[in-house]
Every structure is written in C-alpha cells, then in structure tokens.
C-alpha cells in the first residue's frame, strides 16, 4: 500500500495538493486554482533557498525514513530516501526526484496528492502529515536541483573562512564572534552589550567552578581593571573546583552512581573513578587520552593505577544479582546498555535503537549494534551473578583497593622515611614502628573500586529482534559501524581481534577514525555548558532526528580547534569565555523578543537556573560551611526520615554524615539510583540510569519546598547569619549587615526597595522570636553545626530568617 508507483498526477482537486497557505517568503495567490496552474506558478516564482541539511533532511527523516530509510526490514517499495542514489535512480517509468523538475518527481506527486490512498505519509501511519509550508519547502528544494549532502554530523568538519563583519557593534574579541555576528547582522540585529563586571564574574565563576564568587574575587578583579577578568578566568581554570564542576557534567554522561540500580540497589564501590574524572579535568588531561583511559586503560602498555581506575567506566552501568536473573539475559542487557552509553557519550548517537532492528533514522544496522557490543565481551563481570550479596556494599568483582593521590604521596613520604630509618641504627625502633603503623592504617583506608579486567571474550551473536533466547543469529566480531569505518583496519593492524583500545583510538583518531566527529559532539557540549544550550540543541542526538546546528561552520571550526589544540579542554573554555559572544548581557531586548525569542542567533547570553549540585554548593558557600576538599568517598546529607524504607535486600537505615564532610559539594552526595536524594531530584538531577547529555530545568513547588524546608538550607541560613553577625562592628546599622548578607548570596548589594523589604522581615522576625524564644531555640537547633554562643538566640534566629529568605531568591540560583 505504500508507493505503488507510478500514479497519475492529480489535476482537478482544488482542495488538494495546492492549498499552500502562508508560504514563507513567497506571496501566494490561491487556494482555489487548479494544480496545473499552481505548479506553473510555483515554478515561475523565485523560490526560497532550501538548505538540505538544515531544512530538508530533517523533514524526510521525521516523516519518511521510518518506512523509506535505513531499516531494511521495514523498508517499503525498496525505496531509501536517506540515500541520494536511491532517490535519483531511474525506476523505469518514473523517478523519485528529477532535479529541477518537481512536477516530474514522484516525491512531490505523492506528498501533495489529494488521494488518501496515495498521499505520503499515509494518513493511518501515525506520522504527522506534511504541512503546506513543509510541502512547499520540498518543492522548492527539488526545483533548485535537489542538492544533496551527507548528513551534517557524519561529514567531517571542514575548515571555514572567518566571515567578514562590519560595524563597531560587532567588534569581535576572537574569531568565534565573527561566526556569530555574521548571521546576527544579516538578520538586522546586533550583539547585546557586554554584561556588567559583577554579572560576568558570577557567570564565569558558576560556569567554570560551579561556585559563586567570593567577595575578595570581586574586589581583586575590580582593582585589576580590564585584565582582571582574564586573570580571573585563569585562576578559575587552575582551581580544583574546576575539575569538580566538569565532573558533574561528565558523571551525568557516563551515568556514575554509588549503587547498582536494579532490584536491591545496593552500594557498589566506585568513588575512586569519580576522583579520577575530577583529577583528569584539573590536570587538563588531553581529552582523547581521557577517552582511551576510560574505555581501555587496562589494555594500555604498563597502565598506571589511575588508568586502571579509569576503566571503572565500563562498570558504571546498572547491574543485578536478583534471585532468578538469568545471567545470559542480563549479559545481553549489559551489552546493550554499554552500546547505548558509548554511542551517546562519544558519538552523540542512538545506536541503541539498532538492538532489535536496523536504526529507523540513521544508518546504523543491527550488525553494527552487535559488533559494537562485541568490544565489551571481554569484560570480567559475570561473577557477580554468583557472589553478589544483599549487603551494603555488595560485591562486584573485580575491584582493587585505591589510595587517593594525597594518600599516595603520604605513603611515598612514609616509605622513604622508613628506608632512611632502616639504614640508621636500631635506636629508632620506636619511630620505625610508628611509621609502619601509619603505613598500615593508610593501606586500611584504601577504597575499593570496580575496574575492567579483560578475559577470554564471550561469544556475541546478533540477536534477532533483540531476543536473547534466539541463538540463530551469526557470531559477531568486534567492529565499528560499517558506514563510519574509515581506516579502522589500519588501527587494528595485525591484531587477531579488534578490542576496546582500538575502539577508543578510532573514536579519537582524526585521520583514521571519527576523531573529528567525536570532537564536534564534545565541543557542542562545552558550548552548552557556557551558554545553556548547544549550537545543536540536541546535545544527546546528532542523528537524523536531532537538531542541525544553528552555526554549522562555527561548530566545525571549534571541533578542528579542539583537535589541533591537542584536545585541550581548558583551552577551549578559555577561548569561548573570552569571546564577545560569551560576555554579552543575557537580558533580552525588544528586538530579541520579536526576532529571536529562542536565542538561536546567540545575540545575547542565556540565563538559567543552576544545576542541582550548584544550588547546594551556593548555599553552603554562602554559609561558610562548605568544606572544600577534593575527592574521596560519597557523603550523605540530611534526608527526610524513612525515605529509604522501600529499599530492601538489605533494608537500610539512612545515616547522615556526622562530621564536617556533611558540608561537601553536591557532586559528592551519595547517588542512590532508586532513591536519589530528594533535593537533587527536585532540581532535575538525573538518576543516572542512562546517559544524560542535557538536564531538564524545571521550576516546581516541590523545589520551592526543598529550599523552604530542607534542613541543609536552614542550617546554611544560620551559617550566613552567624558570619555576618560575627563580622559586624558594634555600631553597624542593620542595613549594613543586610547588605553583607545579601551580597553573600547574589554578589551585589541590595537596592533600597530590597533593603527595606529585608529590614521589614528582620523586624517581624525579631518580634516573633522575642515573644517566642523557644521557637528561636528550635530553629537554631536545626543542623549539626554548633551555634556560636556569643550570639543571642533571638537575634541569630531573626537574622537566620532573613538569610533564609535571601537563600530562596530566584537570583541566588540563577546564572545570568
């Protein structure tokens, strides 16, 4: 019933194909003329230029590929609309597309048909019909000769000339700005003003470290003048908080969590992997190396311990030892999980769709899926089906004990001291014993971490319809997707079997593999971190159903720059943050609202709510409680009683961390996949079951309840109040103290209205607590930090109330 070609062109219907309403850029005169006339008119009118990659391919993908695309099993009429030769082929008495002749092209005939049995997509297919505007876009494109190009994300990034830009308003800081300014100028707009220093300082601080700036940051920068900002960027990139901030994003991609995810959701040992990620970003480990170490560190010659810890990546997926699991079934689940994650993280692709059938929209076949899966067949993991225990933590061999970098340094110091002592006389036995004891206790404090150990590869078969019980499919050797092979054979060399190391090298090799494509996926995400949205909006999917980039040339250029810089993440962040584009104000003007409400042109910065972890960090930073210590095991913030009561095997009592580690940053919070901390959930942190390339940003009453009632935020408010009161001089007026308090949260002084509102609240709170001193006592007893006894309860409670209001302001958690 699909496309039994050819069909006669319909001539008579007035309500049919030519009802082209509201066409873009082209005046239209009907709807009541007949098609023949309409087509003549269409042909005669100058058509608007249609960009295949931007406009046409996404349409074909969305409406046609499901039946006329890559999936061989579902393909109808032996027609592929994703391949140029199929589209142009001579099919006897008709052609799908005759360039420059839409009227002679079956594609146009069928999409514009008035006949329900003939029109494409078929009305009963569940696919939305093409609108009149979309039909005319295809008409125009055929009329223009149907220019074809490879899907943008599969075409290697090309060098592009830096566009010329005129006018002082488009003054560029670097070449990025030229690519951004050019389309803005063509649209009749201009760059927004540069944001004020305070906004910029705050923006940079959040984007690069996830923490608000300190008062001294602000003062220093202002003293240093124009150079101040650039130095500030350097300082932020050099701080350990930088690696923590980048890790928050990376851990979402690779689905890092502290628990196994399925069934009993027991803890597993993996926190050293998180330290590895933080250190890698702080060391500015070249990102290609970062990739190789995670996927295949164990296969490197003489791997270091850190490279082994990095292979924890392969173990991050959800696992189960539930009674009654069939190992074969779960190994199938795991291999699919790994292919999904690998393709999402590095390729911006949804290869997981090819588990049961060829991909519907992208040229990934089921063979591609299973040959990618075969790379992971050597991972030693099946023992947990037997030894996995209903305990916390459970067992997920293989694991190794790991000392942190600091601990390893300490260990080295002790050991060299011990060597020294051994060479000296035995009069120092006591000293020696002491050092040996220290060494022993260091060893005992090592954390276990799951790692990858290669064993004899399991047999991987292509599973028909993804059915793990079906053994009829062929055995698959590890390989990369057919259409992206490039020189993979050369990478494999004379090895008998391709392995994870070859796979990793192919991902990042710009000559023999898809390195440049991979770079483009990642720089788009860096852009997203710095602008709140990528140059392609679909940071998770660069496939046919994803959104083409708004600035494809710039994205190409950034990818090339990233590779040329030696995969230098800090360089890329420095480059982009120094652009005029980055430094614009985020406040939309009327022009923006009218012409570009979604900010596709980047003629202004974006503003958005901070991610969940940074909300916690901001409150803790303002309170002075934040413990800035890098790496280590996860911590447990205060949590509502009974939140884990539905967990079982074993049952769990949540015990909040009882020392100063309670006040560590959000990225160290224990990530319980099945019961993620409700504060993190309320602010859209993912449960990390699958790759998350882009978090939602919601704005809900549940989130408001967290900020209003979560003890962590009440305690933070008390911390802020304590700080300002202890710093206050006896003669300081309330207004001075309020100003300091306000600045701690939003980095700017309050205006007179804000000041007065907060003064009013302070007065009301003083009244409340002087009448009800026991309420003050109750409020101040929230949280485990001690209350400064120098401060009077009623006064501290009143200021805590004011601080709490400030900690609930939208501005406090908005990155402008």
């Amino acid at each position, binding site marked *: 019933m699909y496309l039994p070609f050819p069909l006669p062109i319909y001539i008579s219907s007035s309500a049919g194909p030519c009802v082209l309403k509201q066409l873009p850029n082209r005046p239209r005169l009907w709807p009541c003329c007949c098609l023949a006339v309409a087509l003549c008119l269409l042909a005669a009118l100058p058509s608007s230029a249609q960009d295949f990659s931007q406009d046409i391919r996404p349409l074909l993908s969305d409406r046609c590929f499901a039946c006329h695309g890559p999936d061989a099993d579902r393909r109808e009429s032996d027609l592929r609309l994703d391949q140029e030769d199929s589209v142009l082929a001579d099919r006897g008495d008709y052609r799908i597309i005759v360039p420059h002749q839409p009227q002679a092209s079956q594609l146009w005939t069928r999409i514009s048909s008035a006949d329900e049995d003939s029109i494409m997509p078929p009305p009963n297919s569940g696919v939305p019909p093409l609108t009149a505007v979309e039909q005319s876009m295809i008409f125009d494109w055929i009329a223009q000769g149907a220019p074809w190009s490879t899907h943008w994300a599969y075409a290697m990034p090309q060098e592009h000339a830096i566009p010329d830009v005129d006018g002082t308003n488009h003054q560029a800081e670097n070449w990025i700005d030229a690519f951004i300014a050019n389309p803005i100028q063509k649209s009749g707009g201009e760059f927004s003003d540069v944001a004020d220093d305070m906004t910029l300082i705050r923006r940079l601080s959040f984007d690069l470290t996830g923490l608000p700036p300190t008062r001294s940051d602000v003062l220093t920068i202002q003293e240093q003048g124009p150079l101040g900002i650039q130095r500030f960027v350097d300082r932020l990139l050099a701080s350990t908080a930088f690696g923590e901030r980048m890790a928050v994003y990376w851990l979402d991609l690779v689905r890092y969590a502290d628990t196994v995810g399925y069934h009993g959701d027991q803890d597993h040992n993996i926190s050293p992997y998180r330290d590895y990620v933080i250190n890698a970003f702080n060391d500015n480990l070249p990102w290609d190396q970062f990739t190789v170490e995670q996927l295949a560190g164990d296969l490197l010659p003489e791997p270091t311990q850190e490279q082994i810890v990095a292979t924890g990546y392969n173990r991050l997926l959800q696992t189960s030892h539930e009674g*009654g699991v069939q190992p074969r079934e779960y190994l199938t689940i795991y291999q699919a999980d790994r292919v999904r994650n690998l393709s999402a993280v590095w390729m911006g692709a949804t290869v997981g769709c090819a588990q049961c059938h060829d991909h519907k929209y992208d040229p990934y076949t089921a063979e591609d899926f299973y040959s990618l899966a075969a790379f992971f067949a050597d991972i030693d993991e099946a023992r947990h089906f037997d030894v996995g225990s209903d305990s916390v933590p459970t067992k997920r061999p293989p694991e190794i004990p790991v000392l942190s970098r600091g601990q390893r340094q300490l260990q080295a110091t002790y050991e060299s001291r011990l060597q020294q002592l051994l060479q000296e006389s035995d009069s120092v036995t006591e000293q020696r014993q002491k050092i040996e004891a220290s060494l022993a206790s260091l060893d005992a404090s090592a954390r276990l971490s799951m790692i990858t150990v290669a064993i004899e590869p399991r047999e991987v078969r292509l599973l028909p319809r993804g059915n793990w019980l079906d053994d009829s499919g062929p055995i698959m050797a590890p390989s990369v997707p057919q259409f992206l092979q490039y020189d993979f054979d050369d990478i494999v060399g004379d090895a008998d079997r391709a392995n994870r190391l070859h796979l990793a090298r192919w991902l990042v090799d710009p000559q023999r593999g898809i390195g440049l494509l991979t770079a483009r996926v990642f720089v788009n995400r860096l852009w997203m971190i710095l602008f709140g949205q990528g140059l392609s909006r679909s940071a998770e999917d660069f496939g046919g159903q994803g959104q083409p980039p708004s600035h494809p040339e710039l994205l190409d250029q950034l990818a090339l720059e990233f590779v040329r810089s030696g995969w230098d993440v800090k360089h890329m962040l420095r480059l982009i943050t120094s652009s005029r584009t980055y430094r614009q104000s985020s406040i939309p003007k009327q022009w923006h609202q009218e012409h570009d409400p979604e900010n596709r042109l980047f003629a202004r910065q974006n503003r958005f709510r901070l991610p969940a972890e940074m909300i916690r960090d901001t409150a803790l930073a303002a309170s002075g409680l934040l413990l800035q210590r890098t790496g280590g095991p996860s911590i447990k913030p205060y949590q509502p009683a009974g939140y884990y009561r539905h967990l079982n095997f074993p049952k769990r009592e949540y015990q909040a961390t009882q020392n100063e580690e309670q006040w560590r940053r959000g990225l160290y919070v224990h990530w319980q996949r099945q019961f993620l901390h409700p504060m993190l959930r309320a602010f859209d942190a993912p449960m990390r079951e699958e790759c998350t390339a882009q978090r939602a940003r*919601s704005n809900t009453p549940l989130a408001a309840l967290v900020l209003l009632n979560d003890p962590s935020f009440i305690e933070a408010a008390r911390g802020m109040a304590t700080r300002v009161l202890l710093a206050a001089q006896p003669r300081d007026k309330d207004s001075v103290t309020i100003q300091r308090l306000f600045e701690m949260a939003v980095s700017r002084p309050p205006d007179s209205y804000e000041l007065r509102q907060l003064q009013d609240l302070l007065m009301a709170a003083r009244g409340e607590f002087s009448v009800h001193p026991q309420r003050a006592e109750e409020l101040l007893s*929230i949280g485990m930090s001690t209350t400064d006894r120098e401060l009077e309860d009623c006064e501290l409670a009143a200021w805590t109330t004011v601080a709490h209001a400030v900690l609930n302001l939208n*501005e406090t958690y908005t990155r402008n």
Partner: protein
Amino acid sequence: MHTADHNNSQADSVNRRTFLSNGGISLASVALSQLLCRDLYGREPNALGLPSGLANPGALPHFTAKVKRVIFLYMAGGPSHLETFDFKPELNRLDGQPMPASYTAGQPIAQLQGKELRVQGHLTKFSQHGENGLWISDFLPEHRKIIDKVCVLKSMVTEQINHDPAHTFMNTGTAISGRPSMGSWITYGLGSECDDLPGFVVMTSIGGRNPQPIATRQWSAGCLPSRFQGVEFNAAGEPVHYVKNPAGVSSLMRAQVVDTIRKLDQHRNQLVEDPEIATRVAAYEMAFKMQTSVPQLMDLSDEPDHVLKMYGATPGDGSFAANCLLARRLAERGVRFIQLYHRGWDHHGDLVKHMHTCCGLTDRPTAALLQDLEQRGMLHETLVIWGGEFGRTPMFQGKGGPGRDHHIKGFSMWLAGGGIQPGISYGATDELGYNAVENPIPIRNLHATILHLLGIDHHKLAIKFQGLNLRLTGVEHAEPIRPILS
C-alpha cells in the same frame, strides 16, 4: 524613592491579581496553571524548560473521555492468577505430575531454571459469583461483592520476568530505564484538575511480608520535565517530603518569608524580565498552599466511623486500607493519576500463608474503594486497575511450603469503572494457566486502553526523544482492548 515605592507596591498588587486570576494568558496565570501539571503542555516550551523536541501533542483530549482519573491498585511482586481469578480444573487433575515439556521448552524461566518442573494444583478453592458466574478464589471473599463491577482480564502477557524490569515494563512500556511512567504521560497530556495538589500521586503501603523494593523510577517522569513525576505521599510520618515548616517556624513567620521572597523576586523581574521568575513566584505560592492542603488531605479525622470501618482503615498507619481511603480523597480533589503499591505478592514458597496475609490486607479495602466511589457517584468517571507486574507459574516451587515462580506468558488483572463493561471476564489462558491463548493482551494494549478511556489517542501522545517519536505504547502495534469497552 517615593515614586519607586509606589511602582513597586502597584506592581505587587497587579502581579498578585494576575497571578490569582485563572483566565487569560497573562504570564503569571500561565505560570500558575503550569505548576503541578495543570493544563499546561506546549504553550511556551522553552519558558517551561522542556527538553528539546518536547512538543504539543495536539489538542487534548483527542476525543470524549470516559473517565477523568485513574486509580491503579498495584499488587507488586506478582500475585498468582491461579489463586485469584483463573480457575483451571486440569491443573488440579495433573497436580504433582511432571509439567508437560511442550509448555516450557525454550521459555524464559526465573528461579526454577534447571530444576525439575512439576504441576502445582490450585492451592485454594474457587467458586462462581455475580450475575455472570465469574470465578473467584476463596482468598478474596470481599471481591464477591464487587465482581459485578469489574472486568477480569485473564490473558495478560508481559515481557520481563524479574521484578525490577517487569515493574519498569508495566509502568513505562519498556524495560529500558529513563522513560516516562504512565502517570507522567497522563499528567503531561491532561494535566491535573486541582490547584493545590500534584497531578500524579503515589503511595506505598506499610504492612505485610518482607517486600520487594520499589524504585522511584516507577513513577519517574523520565525524559519529561520533572514536574510530571509522581509525588510520593507517605501515610505515616511527613506526608510529603519537606512539606512541614521547620521547627521553630510558625505559619505566620513562614507567610512573611514567602511574601518577602515574592516581593523581591517580582522586583528583580522588573529589571531582568525573566518569565521563569513569574513561574517561580507561582511555585512558591503553590508550595505554600500545599503546606496546608497536604496535611488536610492526609488527616482522616473528618471521615465518619462507618467509612473507616468499611475500609478497615486506621488513620495514620500507612496500611493499604488507609491508602485506599486516601486515594478516594485524592480523587475527590481532582488528582489525575493515583497509584497505590502494595508489596509482598512474591510467593515462591508458602503461598497459602502469604496469600492470607496479602489478601487479608488488600481484599476488603479494594472492595470498599469501589463501593465508596460508586456511592459517591465517582466510579463512572474513574478507572480502577488491579494487578501486578506478572503472574505465577503453574509449576510448583517450594521455598518453604508450596509456591510458584514468576510467570509472564499469561496472568490476570482487572479493570473497573467508566467505559468498562462490568461483570465480565476477557481472554483466557490454556488449560494449565500457562500461555494466554485467547485474546492475549500485551501491556501496550493495556496502556492504549487506559489512554483511550482518558480520551487520548495513544498514537498521538508522543514526544521526540533521542530521535524517536517516543510513546507510552512503544513502536509495535498497540490498540485499546475494544471488546471490553462499554
């Protein structure tokens, strides 16, 4: 400064007014309606923080809805269809004999893999009840009273044989994590009918035997924005996380803090014109309301004794009975999707003892809920669903006394309420209760039915996600179970 003050206070009152008015399309009122999922999708996708590709699913409902809401009584663990509604004389005849290999060869098996497979006859008696003489086991005496209100589905089929993925499959239509649950889909599509409660509420009862865990994934919004996620209400302890004022904070003080936050946010908005701020102001107003409305909802002291008795509910004990009563209260207030989990149905051994426990806790409140809804004229506008993630094997398993293993090829559920033909059964398993042989019902058809009754064409309720037109009913052919619709 005087002028500025005047402007500010005027702005306050104007904003407050538009905020409170429900009509029109002023930013603030849109914001209000968006919160907790009321009537919202698609109007301003980006202002709402929707992920890329989230689009308006078209005018909803797509056709006239038969019901306004759903109450899903989720019997987690896998209740035995062979000890509830699916009576098979042949099973008793073959009791203790080897299970014919024709049934089990090449089939997925959970804990019994590699074991000798023997037929286990029914572990209780069955009798016929209601106008159409439907079979009910002796474990469910109270069900006799409501059997003429329900439609028993005896040919359910699922694809996942372990609890966790099977729950995920039942709730999201796939075993892959990260997809929206049905309650999220429905609140995304239809919103909630109330202004001070979430559209999707989940409760898990306390009591019974050592239960299987239930993950928050089961009520996750997945790739939909988090405001569509199910909100867990707790019948014991704090009813919703963070809904109570902190110690030492009086309602009056709280009101003043919320008021100050609102004024400062609105003041800031005059400078930065950020629609998110308006949404946030409304979120705080709603949060403040919830601090009152949730405790009121959960407080059963206004329920008369005879109602408490009918359910067998003791206020505040977190039992399934108390939750059923709360479900009715949630339904009365306009909550769209209410899901009650009762765990402990995983009877690998000692099935008889454990069925007494589970049925003892759930049978009566289930019957009471249907009767109560009917008496209040609400049953015809409500869809009530009873069932678990799978059924149990016709084969014996003996951890302790006789029991049964997980079974996915045929099991029973029931539906009741608006749009459903009452007092009938639909579909059938084979003579041993193994395979659904007559009108097998895949989970996606159950999903399509639920959506259909709510006035939603399951094809059209879709979002773009990772290149897919993601739907609750997935990519394979799905359709409502039309023969059971009234």
